[in-house]
């Protein structure tokens, strides 16, 4: 199937905004993604070291009701996976790839993706969420912490961008 172009960013922005409003009204929370990743990781680690996870001050409460995966954000993340897959499939954008600029090899790109993920995963727990749960959701509810997070994120993103220019640009 021929690959279709992305939709207008303002249309997509309204779509995400309306989805968030639905979460405000129906769930009474907002959107989120990093919480599900943390809980998924805790569930996997729990198989290897149950005591360490259950006695940890941060992850312990997640196991009190049974599985850390019995949480609304985990189900939201499953929905995000399905929605992303559906949209990519309908637009002819499915395909196994390691996406990068023309000046970088696939293994170097994967190494940098691992490093970036490590930082973002740690930072999400520190901030209490990520671009979805703190920035988008917080900003939309006039939460000062969401705006602080956004400003700090862009400042650091632009500060670090020159160091990894080769990863992205020709």
């Amino acid at each position, binding site marked *: 199937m021929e690959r279709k172009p992305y939709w207008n960013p303002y249309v997509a922005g309204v779509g995400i*905004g309306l989805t968030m409003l639905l979460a405000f009204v129906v769930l009474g*929370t907002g959107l989120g*993604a990093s919480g599900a990743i943390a809980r998924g990781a805790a569930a996997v680690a729990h198989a290897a070291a149950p005591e360490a996870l259950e006695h940890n001050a941060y992850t312990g409460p997640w196991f009190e009701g049974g599985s850390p995966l019995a949480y*609304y954000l985990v189900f939201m993340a499953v929905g995000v996976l399905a929605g992303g897959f559906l949209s990519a499939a309908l637009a002819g954008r499915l395909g196994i790839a390691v996406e*990068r600029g023309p000046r970088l090899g696939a293994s170097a790109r994967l190494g940098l*993706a691992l490093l970036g993920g*490590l930082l973002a995963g740690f930072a999400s727990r520190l*901030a209490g969420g990520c671009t979805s749960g703190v920035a988008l959701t917080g900003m939309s509810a006039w939460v000062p912490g*969401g705006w602080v997070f956004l400003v*700090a994120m862009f400042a650091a993103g632009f500060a670090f961008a020159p160091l990894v220019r080769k990863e992205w640009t020709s």
Partner: protein
Amino acid sequence: MSFYEAGLLASPAAFVAALLIGLSFGFWLERAGFGSARKLAGIFYLRDFAVVQVMFTAVVTGLVGLWALEAAGVATPASLHRIDTNLAAQLAGGAIFGAGFVIGGWCPGTALVGAASGKLDALAFLLSAGVGSLAYALAHGALAPIEALGACGVVTLPELLGISAGVLTTALFVVALALFAGIARLERRRRMEVLR
């Protein structure tokens, strides 16, 4: 009444609702082009403004919508859970996150979309984000004094500034329109080719 207000956020019905909301979120993220790390990273080189265009449109939609919902009494302080503001944690977290974003090319939500469309770098990002989350859990106790700095609980900017939400939302709407007009001018002047 929201699932949160009813104390039913952990019920099967709330899980189904969260799944459907996630389905819509993931769909729109992918439509925006956010299943592509190059498109996302483009913002940090001012080559592709989709991240700013999409985020600010979503935030303006959310702010205007929530303002209307609150005015109509549909959303109340009891029905909507706002996250706490922890200034030091969100400042430091935002900065580390921004570095991770440009180095890794993803944020957690977009990485889910990237992985769903077959990007192996998104899968790598997600796996190590899980490791990073566990690293935080180990450091949680030691970080507590830092996180206590600027911990404000649930507050909002209109409360803090003493300006009504309607005025502040209108002001941001105007700022966002000016930002979008500036982006359009820049794209025309540079004859920019965004990733499609």
